[in-house]
């Protein structure tokens, strides 16, 4: 599935929810289902600081695609982190660099991407793009 197809699938899923509780329940469930992060990667250098909640993320590049492990101390943020990973992981650096993440706005959680809310998610998306850019540069060199 392409990044766009995955995002459209999430948006379609969210359209089923008639009220906000169900939407949040789903996001929280996604957070709970995020595979635990290997403690060796849950270190300060992988920490993305937000004013309110913190996100740890570690990328892995293998066979031309990037995967991520991540965690957050706030469960709603963690659920969104899980969704972002679901959308982007397993794609090539170029696909990730070029990707436009529109699903967070579309499911009505745009406040999580607001710099004033600063909860780590926005910084995480930026960081993912930076990693992808670095891997892309590496690919071009080799």
């Amino acid at each position, binding site marked *: 599935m392409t990044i766009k197809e995955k995002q459209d699938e999430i948006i379609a899923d969210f359209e089923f929810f008639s009220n906000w509780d169900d939407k949040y329940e789903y996001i929280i469930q996604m957070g709970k289902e995020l595979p635990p992060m290997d403690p060796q990667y849950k270190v300060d250098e992988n920490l993305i600081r937000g004013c309110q909640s913190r996100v740890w993320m570690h990328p892995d590049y293998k066979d031309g695609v990037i995967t991520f492990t991540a965690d957050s101390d*706030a469960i709603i943020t963690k659920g969104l982190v899980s969704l972002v990973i679901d959308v982007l992981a397993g794609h090539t650096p170029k696909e990730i660099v070029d990707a436009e993440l529109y699903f967070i706005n579309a499911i009505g959680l745009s406040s999580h991407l607001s710099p004033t809310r600063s909860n780590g998610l926005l910084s995480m998306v930026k960081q993912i793009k930076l990693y992808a850019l670095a891997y892309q540069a590496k690919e071009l060199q080799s």
Partner: protein
Amino acid sequence: MHDTVTIKDNSVLDVEKVRKDFPILDTLVFGHPLVYLDNAATTQKPEAVLKAMEEYYHTINSNVHRGVHHLSQQATDAYELARKKIAEYIGAKHAHEIIFTRGTTESINLVAYTFGKKFLRPGDSILTSGLEHHSNIVPWQLACEDRGATLKVIPIDENGELILDGLEKLLEGVKLVSVNYVSNALGTINPVREIIAAAHRQGTPVLLDAAQAVQHMEVDVQELDVDFLAFSSHKIYGPTGFGVLYGKEQWLNELPPYQGGGEMIKTVSFEKTTYNDLPYKFEAGTPDMAGAIGLGAALDYIQKLGLSTIRQTEHNLMAYALEALQEIKGLRMIGRSAHRAGVLSFLVGDIHPFDLGEILDKQGIAVRTGHHCAQPIMDQYCIPGTVRASLAFYNTPAEIDKLVAGIRKAATLLG
């Protein structure tokens, strides 16, 4: 040991009637009636304040103190009347002891900079407390760094109260003490009389950050014998961007100017400038006339309701809220001082405050989450932050019930 609040009478406000003075309280948030419990961040403004400011711009707007014309005189009169009202509200001896600033932060920065420049020498120290807002820490760090001085801290105990046992010793070498009257993060009312008395025994002046005090209880600078006092207009039902520094006349006369410009000078030549008298020496540039008039109107409004009536109303609501919150399974109060005003800071189970705040927001309940600009307190408790509900006299027991139900719902969702 603690400041006790004398309540002159037991009358309480007719809150439903008072709420009509605050049109914003009728707002719907996500389809729910707004439950505004973020009053320690900023209070809402009564119609009387909005009207006073509008009227100023409609009828007498003009620059103060320099115009020869009629409007300028009217604006100056209204502006200086506001200064008198503020002086009376906090019991200052003279109106010229009231310096207008942009807020508590600027008031503290003004003293930190000017006092530091005049009186701080290498090896000296400034004493603050472990309960402070960043705005009563960082200005002093800057001053200390600049002057080669050190910043000392009165420690706090697990209830969020200051430990004053070692105060006499801590005061050695201290040139100024700067503490808050009421903690913005935990709501603790600090024993400031005891601190002021101890500091004065050693001839050390005291600055009180009263940003979370003046809207909840009577504060009389002469009775407290405090040397400097700072507060913000927007936390006491007045407009944003305006604040007050009170200083005893003799201290303000001793301090050098803070900023240079118009209004603060008597004569200017390229060789020598002489400075204006108090309070203008510290008020460079065209001031916020509407801000001053707005704050004046806010204080009139408060006095019309009666500060002791406000105090009793808020006291009853706080008691109700404390009891109601304690019914919630897994809720723990952060800061357990019995001497408390305005603020309830808490955590529920291991739920992150940000998650709880977001689910409350979805139910129209406005609280603050995070470290409340008081990271050292959160570090002491080893927590990332708290959920803070902060009360004003216009809040109701029914709103507390909604908060409790909202927290229960959030706990079910997040648990």
